[in-house]
């Protein structure tokens, strides 16, 4: 009896003990000033772990380069990758951990985590360098974030218009839209661009998130006799739709346009040879004649089985450099007692950075929104992207 009595109380005691240990763990953390610790709330597990992987990769690469060149103000930079998965509570708890000491935080990456965790950073006055998502998500938390892209309705119409202009015989277009995160607004922007050059948009085909078969969707699209196709859905689904289109006798693949978020490794691993000839737009120019970029590209391919860098892969590379420049140019000390004002210094620097040399382009930011950032249009030939056009 006594034994059982004890056992029934031992479990709650373990819990209390656990909480104590865990809180000491937090209180015990001290800010070390002999290196620049930059937390990166990333998603390296769960359904989009593959995207998180290359984001971590590029952030670490930037840090290695900087450290090899002597660090920032004489101290090395250290990216601390913190996994949040796609869970909102994990993201919030991790963000709550870093608001005590971080100068600036990179991420969070998945949209659900941004929505949940950024308010905590805003409350604490900590700047979040989110460079992996659309304007719609980050603008909500201005000025404590910046947008890596111009507003969707400004940046996307020119690129779809440019694509349409390459195919003057294309009069009607069907768009496949997956209802997920910021993709419906992007689909709307695609349509605006196409309509601006006189292309008629047929009825959208909606792609269910849990679809396993794509033939019915493709049939629905082809029943409208379109001249062109725009794919605004996840990379795997885009690839499968292209394969189905091929089976149904679609000939001119250059009249299939894949949007930037689908330009990811999963597109190529799923689509294989069927992708040959399709058009893709994204924000990195693979053929940029710049030694720094080519070195990045080679290293990326070496670590990823020869796959070309994905559209989002350079974002956090530039982010790390932007933070480095902010620390150097605003003479940040990293002294914990000046944390609050130095956070604001970084924020104000990054949100209005002028002439910052990114790996792909020179950045000019105005109040957290980049100006003059263009997109690139490619056509895929024998597995290689061929540059077609660029927009400003």
């Amino acid at each position, binding site marked *: *009896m006594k034994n*059982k*009595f004890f*056992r*029934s109380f031992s*479990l*709650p005691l373990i*819990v209390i003990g*656990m*909480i104590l*240990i*865990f*809180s000491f*763990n*937090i*209180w015990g953390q001290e800010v070390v000033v002999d290196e620049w610790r930059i937390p990166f709330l990333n998603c*390296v*597990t*769960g359904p989009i772990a593959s995207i998180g992987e290359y984001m971590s990769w590029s952030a670490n690469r930037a840090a290695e380069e900087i450290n090899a060149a002597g660090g920032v103000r004489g101290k090395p930079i250290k990216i601390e*990758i*913190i*996994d949040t*998965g*796609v*869970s*909102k*509570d*994990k993201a*919030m*708890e991790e963000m*709550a*951990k870093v*608001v*005590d000491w971080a100068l600036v935080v990179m991420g969070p990456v*998945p*949209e*659900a985590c941004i*929505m*949940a965790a950024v*308010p*905590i950073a805003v409350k*604490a006055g900590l700047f979040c360098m989110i460079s992996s998502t659309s304007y*719609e*998500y980050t603008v*909500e938390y201005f000025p404590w974030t910046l947008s890596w892209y111009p507003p969707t309705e400004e940046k996307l119409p020119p690129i779809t218009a440019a694509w349409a202009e390459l195919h003057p015989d294309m009069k009607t277009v069907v768009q496949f839209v997956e*209802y*997920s*995160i*910021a*993709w*419906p*607004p992007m689909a709307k922007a695609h349509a605006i661009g196409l309509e601006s050059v006189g292309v008629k948009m047929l009825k959208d085909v909606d792609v269910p998130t849990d679809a396993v078969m794509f033939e019915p969707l493709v049939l629905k699209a082809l029943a409208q006799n379109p001249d062109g196709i725009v794919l605004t859905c996840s990379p795997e689904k885009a690839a499968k739709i292209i394969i189905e289109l091929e089976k149904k006798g679609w000939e001119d693949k250059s009249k299939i346009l894949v949007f930037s978020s689908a330009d990811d490794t999963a597109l190529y691993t799923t689509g294989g040879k069927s992708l040959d000839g399709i058009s893709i737009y994204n924000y990195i120019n693979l053929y940029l004649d710049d030694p720094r970029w080519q070195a990045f590209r080679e290293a990326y391919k070496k670590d990823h089985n020869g796959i070309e860098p994905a559209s989002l892969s350079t974002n956090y590379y530039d982010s790390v450099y932007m933070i480095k420049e902010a620390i150097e140019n605003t003479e940040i000390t990293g002294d914990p007692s000046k944390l609050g004002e130095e956070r604001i210094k970084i924020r104000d620097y990054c949100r209005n950075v002028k002439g910052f040399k990114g790996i792909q382009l020179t950045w000019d930011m105005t109040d957290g929104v980049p100006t003059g950032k263009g997109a690139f249009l490619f056509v895929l030939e024998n597995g290689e992207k061929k540059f077609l056009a660029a927009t400003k």
Partner: protein
Amino acid sequence: MSEVLYYFLGFTAIYILMGWALYLPYRVGQLHFLIVACMAVTAYFGGFAAREWGWPFILLLLVGISIGAIIAFVFSQAIGKAPCFTVVIVGLTSVFIVKTVIENWELLGGTIGFFHIPTVKYLLPIIYILLLIVGFLIYKIDHSRLGRAASVVFVDREVAVSLGIDIKKLGMFFQIIACAIAGMAGILDAFFVNSVSPEFFTFSMISYLMCILFVGGYTTMWGVILSAFILQGIPLLFPSEVASWRQVIYGALLVIIILIRPEGLISRKMLWGLKPKFSFNNK
């Protein structure tokens, strides 16, 4: 108080509420995932009403509880005494239907989500006071005639009928209370997180709640409290290399617990220091 502790305690409390909401209908052998749908509905409603119409928090709490109860009441007319897996499928489908509706509703932010829900002062103490009230309520239900009737229904429905227990009414009662709690948890969640997104209410949330209920123990209300603390704490305590495998850890915990302690960490046997009053053999 440390910020992390604040969020840890807050989420744990919300998950305890949701765990209890899952626990109550399971008293009569029903896995009622409709609670997640209710949580999504009230989180959106609460967020919208607070931001756009400026409704006060206390009013929203009451409205959230009523919304949950009303949804449950409508559904329970049909599934009051339905077998376990019918209730499972009703819950799962309603979660997906609610998500689809939200994703297509521009006013609620569509697929992007809904931002800037106002904050409330002293939210954490309020959550814990509510937790105590709900806990007391469930304790009272458990130790009432209804609780004992539910135990009979769980073991053998035919015996329960022969004892004159109205299974449908009992099932409806537990479902309505559960969804009312879930409705309250939805409001608390919206104010605690300050934003809502369709991505918050997924199948992985359902599996997490299942873990909380069955790892902790489904025969008493106390198991949920223990396992919510443990499961919410695991990813925070362990180094990130281990924590990134948390889904595997949860899954393994679930299998191991079902194997070696089918009644969960805290069972009635343990609390009473006695043999269980009934066995779980459905002959």
